[in-house]
């Protein structure tokens, strides 16, 4: 049978040619900022002092991009200033963390790779203990590995179970000074069973424990916690304004936690010791801020600045560390000319046609 069709060119397409920022990390000592780019599947490193109020694209110092990099559906990034290494987390496809040297640029193989569970999102380094912590969305779990773990090396310990109260965790941050790990959860909770094409069906039919939608939260654990550990403190409730909390950072010097609050285009700052249904100490949000679908934040205590990586706009924003309300950013890093719209796609795996409105619906 001869198939009809063939190499049809698309009549229309929606593809964003520019990067979109997602994860962010700062190395104030070496004056570097690194951000992940989910759209073009790359990692961009900037000078810490870069950015301005101009409308032009900000030039990165380096960009890691290409098929050899093993960078794909990317989420968080992390710096290791002592080793001068960049950690890059792939979230929903590649199931691996890849590590590059500071000087990496272009299409090159990673220095090392660590395979991780599917839907790993966040990462945080503890340079004192030489360990990294990651968050895993679909397992509602935090796993801790050796810093130099490679290949299929198993985690040293995991925090997982109903008592942890984690539910679809994203941002994770190791508070090295206080021996704690903070985790931001969206609130989607279920207990899955093996599901992949490589998992043979067991003799028993898997049973459902029933899914739940919990309120989004910030959970604080002892950094030695393992198993079904209860959090030391939990920030959760309507007063918190938490709404799809993504990346987080901790200011141990000033005892604060900053959260990229994706659901309402804001950054929330809580007291580090806050617990329960508490109001944030500060909220940065409003038209002047330029915050649009923020994915991650980074606090630079050395230079008293707070960085925000936007996904809904082709920008990263630099605020005063103590900014509050509808404050304008001090400077802006642009990965596309000002005003360039974003496609908004993040790993589009489905589409539906709304015949009533002649619209296409694409879930991320």
């Amino acid at each position, binding site marked *: 049978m001869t198939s009809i069709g063939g190499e049809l060119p698309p009549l229309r397409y929606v593809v964003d040619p520019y990067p979109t920022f997602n994860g962010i990390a700062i190395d104030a000592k070496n004056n570097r900022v690194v951000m992940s780019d989910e759209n073009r599947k790359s990692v961009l490193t900037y000078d810490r002092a870069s950015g301005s109020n101009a409308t032009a694209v900000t030039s990165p110092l380096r960009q890691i991009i290409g098929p050899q990099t093993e960078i794909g559906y990317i989420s968080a990034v992390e710096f290791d200033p002592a080793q001068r290494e960049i950690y890059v987390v792939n979230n929903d496809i590649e199931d691996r963390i890849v590590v590059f040297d500071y000087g990496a640029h272009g299409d090159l193989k990673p220095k090392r790779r660590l395979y991780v569970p599917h839907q790993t999102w966040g990462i945080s380094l503890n340079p004192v203990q030489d360990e990294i912590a990651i968050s895993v969305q679909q397992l509602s779990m935090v796993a801790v590995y050796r810093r130099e773990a490679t290949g299929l090396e198993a985690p040293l310990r995991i925090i997982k179970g109903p008592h942890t109260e984690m539910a679809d965790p994203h941002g994770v941050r190791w508070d090295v000074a206080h021996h704690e790990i903070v985790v931001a959860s969206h609130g989607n909770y*279920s207990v899955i069973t093996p599901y992949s094409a490589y998992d043979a069906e067991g003799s028993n039919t898997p049973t459902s424990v029933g*899914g739940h939608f919990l309120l989004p939260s910030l959970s604080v654990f002892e950094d030695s916690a393992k198993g079904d550990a209860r959090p030391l403190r939990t920030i959760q409730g309507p007063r918190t304004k938490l709404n799809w909390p993504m990346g987080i950072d901790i200011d141990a010097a000033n005892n604060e936690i900053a959260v990229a609050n994706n659901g309402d285009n804001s950054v929330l700052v809580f007291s580090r010791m806050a617990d329960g249904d508490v109001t944030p100490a500060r909220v940065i949000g409003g038209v002047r801020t330029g915050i649009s679908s923020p994915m991650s934040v980074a606090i630079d205590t050395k230079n008293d600045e707070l960085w925000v990586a936007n996904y809904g706009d082709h920008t990263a924003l630099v605020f005063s560390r103590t900014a509050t309300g509808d404050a304008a950013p001090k400077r802006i890093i642009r990965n596309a000319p000002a005003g360039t719209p974003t496609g908004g796609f993040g790993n589009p795996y489905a589409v539906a046609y709304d015949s009533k409105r002649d619209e296409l619906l694409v879930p991320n």
Partner: protein
Amino acid sequence: MHGIAYDATHDEVIVPVALGAAVLTFRGGATGAEAPIRVIQGRKTKLIRPHTVAVDEQNGEIIVADTSSRSLLVFARDADGDLPPKRVIQGPKTGLLFIVGVAVDPVHDRIVAASASSIPGGTSGLFIFDRNDQGDVAPRGVIAGPQTGIVRPWQLAVDPSLGRVFVAAINNENHPPYQLEMPRADLARNLQLPSPWTTGALGFVGVWDIHDNGDVAPRAVIKGPGSFLVHPAGVAVNPKGGEVFATDSVRNGLFTFLAPHFFSKPGADRVPIENRRDHE
């Protein structure tokens, strides 16, 4: 989310929430943080990791493909809360494993599932069931094999008026290194797994007849560098406008193809497009 369905009759949008073991229904045109109008969730639903959904507007049903329970679960369209499915297709006879696509054809009374298996003896392809099947039943037809070109199927769409099944064959090679929270025991510790983006076969959108069975080539395809498709995962159709829509995660984009000949009546569809143009 890896699935979505639009119900034109009731102007509603249905999405699965894999991480909350739920199926949500929104009003059509919903925007922002608008709440769903119905939520199927809870222990009785048997939902564990609902991956994708289809809606049968004619018979008032929602069909859910669950990757963890390896099952197709059928709910009433207006189901709301913690309630059991009306029917479940599940078990070794079904051949279903990693079910990532589902579509329903109420005209020909068929449910089509896209399922992948990488275990010995398993089958990756399209599994076609009677719409009212339930329990551990063998499919009426299985479209799989080298002639199909399907290495790894993903989302499905159906044009019920003609009984056409549209398949996004993502076709990339994806070997998960973990089983849930631990590294897979069957993998060598020093193994280097392929990158899902740079390996596998080139993906395509393929079209089959709902009555096709076995190792049969697609009746129509959209494929190749000129199509921009590398590993397409999503597919939807607008039969009235002759349009095929596809999403591609490598491109991180959405593509619209004008292919009215894909929606022509039986009898004309076997003619290659080049010849069709000659006669037009």
